């Protein structure tokens, strides 16, 4: 059963899922770097993105390119809303307040979608050309898989360049190192925070489309698990490190696929549980993650 083909196929699947986790982890790390906040609501943005695409593409008939643009825009808008309504007000206070507010937002968005759409999941079909099946050598895949991996890598590269070369990018890195020093230098922290939310949310929304396309269905609760797994990815790769987040995402994807594939059948339901088991192991063995800086233990 464990032929080379099987293993390769699983690795490939792991890479696809890993690419999505990596994107989510990237968004979360951006916000974590700037605000030191685990943005629980980030997961909800996947749901928002997926449903937005569904409405645009399946219900309104907008062609793919247009729908994606709308998804990105809507995601960015959600980022702005979250920033303005919640975080700006709570930013000075205790760390816990922001966590709780973030949670509140997650539940709010999730249930709003449940209310507006339905408690039942929807079948999700990306445009037909994404479903085309290929068989190259030992691995079977669809166009959507290529799309996911390619766009994921593209987004990460673009972001990396952005953060190294542009003014705003350097400002983001400065703020994530020291908010006070950034203010001394004249950086408007509020604007950097807003920008970070916009970028992270837009990325999450697009990832929502990918997620829906890969799983074939969307539901109001789809954001929860993915959001939390994104955090696990960050911990694996090293909190506060952007390459770490992306690396962690891919590792998590592959590990998850492997554990599902190589466990005896009937244990497949443990998929989520295993992810957290990995988290606990990492926290015990190497809490700063594989690539991360040592975060102050408290």
């Amino acid at each position, binding site marked *: 059963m464990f032929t080379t083909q099987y293993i390769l196929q699983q690795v490939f699947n792991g890479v696809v899922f890993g690419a999505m986790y990596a994107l989510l982890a990237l968004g979360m790390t951006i916000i974590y770097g700037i605000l030191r906040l*685990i943005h629980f609501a980030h997961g909800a943005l996947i749901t928002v993105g997926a449903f937005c695409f569904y409405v645009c593409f399946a219900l309104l008939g907008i062609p793919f390119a247009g729908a994606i643009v709308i998804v990105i825009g809507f995601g960015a808008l959600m980022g702005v809303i979250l920033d303005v*309504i*919640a975080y700006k*007000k*709570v930013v000075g*206070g*205790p*760390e*816990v*307040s922001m*966590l*709780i*507010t973030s*949670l*509140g*937002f997650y*539940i*709010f968005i*999730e*249930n*709003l979608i*449940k*209310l507006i759409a339905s*408690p039942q999941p929807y079948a999700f079909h990306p445009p037909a050309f994404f479903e085309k099946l290929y068989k190259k050598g030992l691995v079977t895949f669809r166009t959507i898989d290529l799309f996911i991996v390619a766009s994921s890598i593209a987004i990460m590269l673009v972001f990396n360049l952005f953060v190294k070369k542009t003014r705003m990018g350097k400002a983001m890195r400065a703020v994530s190192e020291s908010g006070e020093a950034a203010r001394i230098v004249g950086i408007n922290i509020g604007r950097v925070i807003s920008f970070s939310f916009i970028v992270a949310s837009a990325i999450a929304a697009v990832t929502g489309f990918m997620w829906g396309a890969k799983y074939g269905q969307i539901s*109001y609760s789809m954001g*929860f*698990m993915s959001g*939390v797994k994104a*955090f*696990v990815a960050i*911990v694996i790769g090293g909190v506060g490190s952007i390459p770490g987040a992306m690396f962690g995402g891919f590792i998590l994807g592959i590990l998850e696929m492997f554990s599902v594939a190589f466990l005896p059948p009937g*244990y497949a*339901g*443990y998929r*989520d*549980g295993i*992810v*957290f*088991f990995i*988290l*606990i192991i990492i*926290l*015990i063995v190497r*809490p700063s993650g594989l690539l991360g800086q040592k*975060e*102050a*233990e*408290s």
Partner: protein
Amino acid sequence: MASTTKNINNEDRPGIPRGVLALIGIAVLFALLWGSTKVFSRYIVFIVSLIGVYVVAAESLNLTNGYSGLFSLGHAGFMAVGAYTSALLTFPVEMREVFALSPLPNWLGGPQFHWPFFPALIAGGLFAMALAFIVGVPVLRLRGHYLSVASLGLMVLITSLAMNLRNVTRGSIGINSIPKYTNIYWAWGWAVVTVYVVWRVVNSSFGRAMMAIREDVSAAQVQGINPLKYRLLSFAIGAFFAGVAGGLYGHLSGAIRPYGFSFDLTFQIVIMVVLGGMGTIQGPIAGAATLIVLRYILKPVEEGLKVYGLVELIYATLLIVVMIYKPEGILGRRVLRK
């Protein structure tokens, strides 16, 4: 005069000593409870009992989150552990085969035995507590958000196990026909106990140490306070009562399913604590009462208009509003921040 802790040194206050006041209060409470069983319908009595159970859960979360400044999101997991453990222990022998539940192994009493209520509750609580210790030791040394996600993960793991260990837990069907041992007195009796324990812990040197750690970890360490020990203990005690709450719940509603112990449940309890006032004794009680009553008032609306998710939406809105405008909660007092 600013103070960050509730003023408890009442030795200087003249008049009736606090202990006697408390006992009178408890007596009054139970009289009221007795009265309500005579006056109100079974439905209302059920809701009042439910509030009592949630008070146990909320107060225990308050100990971990409010007073110790941790942020555990796994409370539902501990409740699940308590619920399943106590249900499996008390399940009547005669019915086990019908319900595809295996009889108890010999070291737990053997196939002809099922546990009485109280020990089963305690067992559930202890099991949850043990889990808290196991997970707490590695995680509590790290920064706060690690605990949040790790506890969330623990909850997922637990519900994952509950859903998949079909031979033990009956999987996603859950266990029903649990004997309904919990009545209004059990629920509120435990609520009183929990409140008392939390009150005692908070107003002891242990509690003061915990709050010192919450305010400033390095300062506390310099005073010779070991953060891990205190966090671990408050996490564990919180877990114990969560387990008990789970057991109480199982024996109140008569049925438990893995889905019932999801993040939504944790969130509900978090809201109760936060809304009512984190870090105060009375806050979670008020929060529990308010939110349960709200839920049951809105339930017919939700069902009638088919607007599922309305209750949670309102909960979330309330939470966000409170966080922005009055983060210390409705009954809370503003804690000094630098």
